[in-house]
């Protein structure tokens, strides 16, 4: 697809909308796994923004893409550790609702 006719503000607007959707899920969900899913939406919106600004402003130096590569890897690590924490909490307290998990001591 030819990108020349898609303006930069289209991508910025889209990632603003996706960020707001993810923010809603982040605040309103009860289940810790659903909160992590919303975080993934927010991170993907940020990645889209990074890549769009790189493509339109500095397409000949690849810093923006390297940023996104590192972000994707960190997100993968975050999901692995987050799920392990969630399963550990579930085994101890038999719930994964973030509003019922109120103690720091195991």
């Amino acid at each position, binding site marked *: *697809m*030819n*990108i*020349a*006719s*898609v303006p*930069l*503000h289209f*991508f*910025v*607007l889209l990632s*603003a*909308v*996706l*960020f*707001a*959707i*993810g*923010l*809603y*899920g*982040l*605040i*309103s*969900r*009860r*289940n810790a*796994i659903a909160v992590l*899913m*919303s975080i*993934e*939406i927010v991170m*993907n919106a940020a*990645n889209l923004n990074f*890549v*769009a600004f790189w493509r*339109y402003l500095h397409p000949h130096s*690849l810093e923006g*893409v*390297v940023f*996104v*590569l*590192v972000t*994707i890897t*960190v*997100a*993968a*690590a975050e*999901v*692995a*550790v987050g*799920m*392990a*924490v*969630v*399963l*550990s909490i579930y*085994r101890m307290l*038999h719930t994964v609702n*973030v509003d019922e998990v109120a103690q720091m001591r195991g």
Partner: protein
Amino acid sequence: MSALELALLTALTVMTVISALMVVAVRNLIHAGFWLLPFFLGIGGFYLILSLEFLFALQLLLYAGAVMVVVLFALMLTRDVMNPNVRQTNRLAIAASAVSAGMMVYLIGAIYRNLGTLTLSPQAVNAEAITRELGKMLLNEYVLPFELTSVLLLSAMLGAIFLARSPKVELEEEVR
């Protein structure tokens, strides 16, 4: 922009936004987990439009493959994720929609105030050359972040195994 391109772009945008909405809104969390798939694919489609084929492949492998599977597994190992009688939003739901709608209006307003600087047309790039250059950069200028990322992944893997394993007592009982 031809009519076909416009239709493709509109379809991709609608798919991404609607699946993101479904992820945060549906009550059945297994369905929410599956709605992550069209969302990640849509973001990957935008990477393709921005001529980043390598990032598209990475998005498919890591997000649509690994992250979604891990999320679904974790959902299936916990309870009350498919029960239609269990509320999945907390008492902040109305406040959350107000906050995120306000955030969206603020961001869109900021974008429209700066529309002059944001209306750019991109330069042509060679998509194959981007992947080649990216490989070179990761092993020359950015070799330190690259190696640090592998250390991070290793420690995350060890940490996840340590956190998720059963307590020792249960293990011994299982052996007996």
